Each structure stands twice: as C-alpha cells, then as structure tokens.
C-alpha cells in the first residue's frame, strides 16, 4: 500500500471552525496594529520631551526630578509594551510595516517641526534638545520605512518568481 493511501485512511481530521477563520481575520486587522504603532510613537515622543526638559532645565527641585523620572519610566513601559505586542501578538506583516513606517515618519517629522518652532520662538534649550531627539527618531523612522519597502519588494519579486516556476502566472 502506498504512503498516500495510508495517509488518507489515517488523517481524517475535522475542518477548521468559524472561530479559527475569525481568528485569522483578527490577525490580519490593520486597525488594531496601527493603534499600537500610534501608542509606541506617542510614548516615545512623550519620553523624548520629558527627557529633554530634565536634561536642560537647570536646578530642578528634587520632587520635580522624581516626577520626571517616574514619567519617563511610564513612557518607556508603554514603549516596551507596544513593541512586545507588535513583535509577539499582533505581528506586522509586510504591508502593515509600510503603513507603520509612514506613520512613524509623519509623527516624528511633526514632532521635530513642533520642537523647532517652539525653540525658535522661545529660544529654550529644552526645545532644541527635543528637536535633537526628534532628528534621531525621524532618521530611525525613515530607515524603518525604507526597510519595509525593501522587504515588500523582495517578497513581491519572490512571489512572481515562484508563480512563474509553478505556472501560476495567470492567477
């Protein structure tokens, strides 16, 4: 008897439930993922602003410094949480990464412009420090976006190659 006959006789498993197909839909949902991307970006920016204030304001009272430290810890916790969700629970697929990258570039560019505007108007060192943080974040966002585009293009190219090899070009 062939291996295939044996397999057919032994592998009469059930069909997937509607719950599972619903799970797949949830895993493909863009909205939930982008919520966590937004949370990540906002938490990063908040942490950047508070860090800039802390570093540039002279002679802060102890209780203010403690307050800043607590707020930075909270911000970093949210960053960690959002990163964990995006890498373990609601993993970003190739097209999601592009959208997330665009969001990151937009958010960080706005943050940078805002910090520069405040710095220009007030001349405060904290605003310029925040702008420096903004530059770093913007560069990181651009790198992430470029990486997302490269990955998407690589996958599309691989898909076309496989479809050609498998004779599925008409699909």
């Amino acid at each position, binding site marked *: 008897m062939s291996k295939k006959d044996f*397999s057919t006789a032994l592998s009469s498993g059930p069909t997937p439930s509607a719950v599972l197909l619903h799970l797949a839909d949830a895993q493909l949902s863009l909205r939930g993922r982008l919520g966590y991307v937004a949370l990540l970006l906002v938490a990063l920016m908040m942490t950047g602003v508070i860090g800039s204030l802390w570093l540039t304001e002279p002679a802060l009272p102890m209780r203010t410094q403690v307050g800043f430290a607590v707020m930075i810890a909270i911000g970093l916790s949210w960053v960690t949480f959002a990163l964990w969700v995006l890498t373990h629970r609601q993993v970003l697929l190739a097209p999601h990464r592009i959208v997330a990258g665009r969001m990151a570039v937009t958010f960080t560019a706005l943050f940078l412009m805002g910090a520069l505007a405040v710095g220009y108007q007030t001349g405060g060192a904290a605003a310029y420090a925040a702008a420096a943080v903004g530059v770093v974040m913007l560069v990181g966002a651009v790198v992430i976006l470029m990486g997302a585009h490269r990955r*998407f293009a690589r996958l599309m190219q691989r898909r076309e190659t496989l479809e050609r090899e498998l004779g599925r070009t008409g699909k």
Partner: protein
Amino acid sequence: MIEANDTGSRAREDEWLVVRCQLGERPAFEELIQRWYGPLWTYVRRLTGEDEAAKDITQDVWLRVLRGIGRLREGSKLRPWLFGIARRTSMDWLRARYAAAVLSDVDVTGIAAEDAPLDLEEELRAMQGELARLPVTEREVLTLFYLQELSLDEVADLLGIPAGTVKSRLFRARQLLRRELESKGRQV
C-alpha cells in the same frame, strides 16, 4: 528523481503560500488554514489521545502560526515549521498533564532487529486504536511520516534527530503495531 522533483515542487508551493501570507493576502491565510487544519489536528490528536484536548491545542497552535508566519524566513520549510509548533504545544500540554513520561503500557523490549515488510492495508481501521497505544516517540514519527506531509529528512529536522534514527523509530513502530495486531488475532 521524480520524488526529488515532487519535493522541489511541493517546497515551492509551500513557499508561495507563505510569501502570500507574509504579503497579508486574506485568501492565502484561508488556504493555509483549510489545507493544514486537518493534518495538524490529526497529529495533535495522536500525540494527546484526546479529541477535546486536540481541539484546544490545535486552536493554540493556529494562534502561534498566525502570529509567527510573518517571521518565517524559509517558506519552503513550512511543513516542519507547522508540525514543530504543533509538537511543542502538544508536549507542553502533555508535560503539564502528566508531569512525567507518558509512555503507554506497550512493552518495547525484545523486538527483532531485522526489517520486515508489513502489509497494513487490511488493518487500517484496527490500527486507529492500536496507534494510540504506541509509545509517544513511535506514534509521533509514524504519524508524521505516514500523514505524507513530511519526508524522512523533514521529520528528522523537526524532531532534531538523525534520519537514521527516524528510520529505526519507524521500523520499531511498525514492529509494535504488528505485534499488537497479531496479539489480537489479526493476520498481518
């Protein structure tokens, strides 16, 4: 040669499916689930021996698959990857349940070392029950191999053992099955 071509084509089909999933295509995810739900359930069912547990574990397996497929680097290794997740999840469940070895009461000592062909066609139905009585290691390798979803090398890769060990476990599993069937008066 034909088998090698089949394997290559199968690997490309798998990779094609994975790439489409990584591109976020909904029909590809549905295809993935429809194609592999049954084989994964069957594998888990044979490891755990319980319908209800298999259902719950398979659901958990699929959650892990859906969350992890975006990071799968080699799409051509979809099969060992899927069964690897199913195996780890099932073993976690077995460990939690028994907290010890879960070998059945089949005595595996004293089995002849020489290979012998075994005609299983007439005994498939009877084997459904006997398969569940095999020790986990033999039951697992027999299920993986005869589900036709994995080659010898893929089974070896998944279990982290040499292909020769897979062969010997297959041999031993067949011997055990034969002995069990014979002990029940079936001619094999």
